[in-house]
């Protein structure tokens, strides 16, 4: 392996799923890549002036405008006639893509720019101290939806951002997670072949925000998939074209009990909440046909 595109020596926490995800993604993207990065951990831990961990041209402007900045980069490259062979990436966390920058993402997708957007999903505003985002899962406790006498944590389901992206007519939408580097490689390569908007949603566990040991990032990533809570799939032109099958379904408790953000669900009467989370997982399994032994049924287009 030659030098990583994201050099070592940056200041991410030990066990950071986001740093690992970015390293894996960008090494596949290669040197002919220009990245527009949203504000967040990824920008903070890679570019403390005057140092940088990036070996590709990289720009950070604001929290909510990475897709618009990337659109400007694409327009400028076209105007200069130097767009050939260059992959432009708009990258940000779940807050940047699903919440504050959602309008900019939607605009970029709808305009049809040849840009790969990447959502590094750690299910909350981790950079500012673990607050709830639109992608925080059901009943997770965060600093703005803490569990308490009258609260079981976040009482709304995780927004289905990949489906919303697909609804724009985005040709290629894929989900993945850091437990599966080969899957990441395959999907980035496929995305790079597509001319137009393409989107990759990657689950990047956060040891600090989720409350697990720094050695468990990969295990948590895998459990998120094996429970059905984070389905891994490809959606091409609005239709599911591949899913990562689950050999043996893992009950959601096995995943939840390893994380402090769900600790409150194992004290007191939380059967209802646990059942609701299991229901979410089961619904994903049914919707995407995740069980290896399940009979193949046509999957409805989103």
């Amino acid at each position: 392996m030659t030098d990583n595109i994201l050099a070592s020596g940056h200041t991410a926490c030990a066990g950071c799923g986001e740093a690992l995800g970015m390293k894996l993604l960008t090494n596949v993207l290669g040197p002919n890549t220009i990245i527009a990065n949203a504000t967040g951990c990824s920008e903070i831990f890679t570019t403390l002036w005057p140092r940088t961990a990036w070996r590709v041209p990289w720009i950070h402007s604001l929290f909510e405008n990475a897709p618009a900045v990337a659109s400007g980069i694409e327009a400028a490259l076209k105007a200069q006639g130097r767009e050939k062979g260059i992959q432009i990436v708009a990258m940000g966390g779940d807050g940047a893509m699903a919440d504050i920058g959602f309008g900019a993402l939607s605009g970029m997708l709808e305009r049809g720019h040849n840009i790969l957007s990447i959502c590094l999903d750690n299910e909350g505003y981790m950079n500012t101290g673990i607050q709830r985002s639109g992608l925080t899962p059901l009943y997770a406790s965060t600093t703005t939806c803490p569990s308490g006498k009258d609260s079981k944590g976040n009482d709304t389901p995780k927004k289905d951002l990949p489906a919303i992206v697909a609804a724009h007519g985005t040709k290629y939408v894929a989900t993945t997670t850091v437990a599966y580097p080969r899957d990441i490689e395959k999907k980035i390569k496929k995305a790079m072949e597509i001319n137009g908007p393409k989107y990759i949603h990657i689950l990047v566990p956060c040891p600090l925000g989720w409350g697990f040991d720094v050695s468990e990032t990969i295990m948590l990533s895998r459990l998120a998939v094996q429970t059905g809570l984070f389905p891994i799939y490809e959606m091409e032109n609005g239709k599911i074209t591949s899913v990562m099958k689950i050999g043996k379904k893992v009950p959601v408790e096995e995943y939840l009990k390893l994380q402090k953000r769900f600790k409150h669900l194992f004290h007191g009467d939380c059967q209802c909440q646990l059942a609701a989370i299991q229901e979410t997982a089961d619904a994903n399994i049914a919707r995407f046909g995740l069980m290896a032994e399940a009979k193949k049924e046509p999957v409805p287009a989103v």
Partner: protein
Amino acid sequence: MSPASVLEKMTMMEGSKAFADAVKVCRPHVISAYPITPQTHIVEELSKIVANGELDTEYVRVESEHSAASVCLGASATGVRTFTATTSQGLLLMIEVLYNIAGMRLPIVLMCANRSVSAPLNIWNDHQDSISVRDAGWIQLYAEDIQEGIDMIPQAYLIAEHPEVRLPVMIGVDGFILTHTSEPVELLDQAMTDKFLPPYKPEIYLDVKKPMTLGAFADPDSYMEIRYSLHKAVEDSKKVIKEVAREFGKTFGRFGGDLIETYNIEGAETVVVAMGSIVSTLKELSDEMKSQGRKMGVVKVRCHRPFPDQEIYDALKDAQNVIVLEKAVSLGQGGILGTEIRSLFMEMEDPPRFSNFIIGLGGRDVPMNFLEMLVLEAEESPVPFKFVGLKEELLGGEK
């Protein structure tokens, strides 16, 4: 040049169309905008120019002004000349990006069709929008008439892209008054503009052959120095703004001042300071008063940032009365331009008598006889701060 040959070169044209034409001859590579009244005619005309193949540019139709500014930011960082236009709420939505653009030293040119801000919603002219972003690190120019708005566009690019400046420039043109009215104007010749404004060739831009990190994060060890250098760059741009105005004068034969323009100020007892289209009315009033043997001079603040402190001081120091008229207000404080100008005389032993009037908010008409009344009022007794022309019947005794 004989008056007849000057007239031959003139065209009767709506301001917005003329501004779009001036943008066209500057050959921006990327234009991005979002519609908002009264900026729309400018971006509509540019869209038409692009649709007709008259300008080779990427026109990015965005979903908000925040993204319009962000597209220009990304494009400018990739090494091309960019243009956007907005006003009022659109400019306010852009604010976060405006500060960012200046901090990243990107030479973007923005035309602001000056309009009031909500609430209450009002689409007519004042300067509250662009004055509210005076501290963003942008150079701010304000045009008096359509011709000056046209002429400021290539000047803005030359200033912004100057290696000693590298700052964004905002051109204020009074909404409706200059954007939606027609005047005889001289459009910019393409060949002359090409000579005046060479292609943009930055040293630093996003390039896979030479990877660079733009927009890094700075901690307390370095932030202050970076902000100081930005402040210094805005201040130091005065020199280039003056040079460019003179260079433009040489090339195109028109010079309407650089940082400021003075009119009939020699020996004037009273000098009125203002920005934008109201200056034309003041000049006419000055001429009329002159014909009656009264001496009223005018100072047009053509460049509000960097603030031309020395130039304004020199123009006002010999006057007995200084009147600052402005179409914006710092709520709970007072006049913004007025406060800035008054502070110039802090150390003067016998300063001019100072008056500061807030006029024309939300498009309230300011006719010449009204301006004359203000001059008389201030000459009789200085008025430190006043909203003028208020309707008692609408205030319910609040005044």
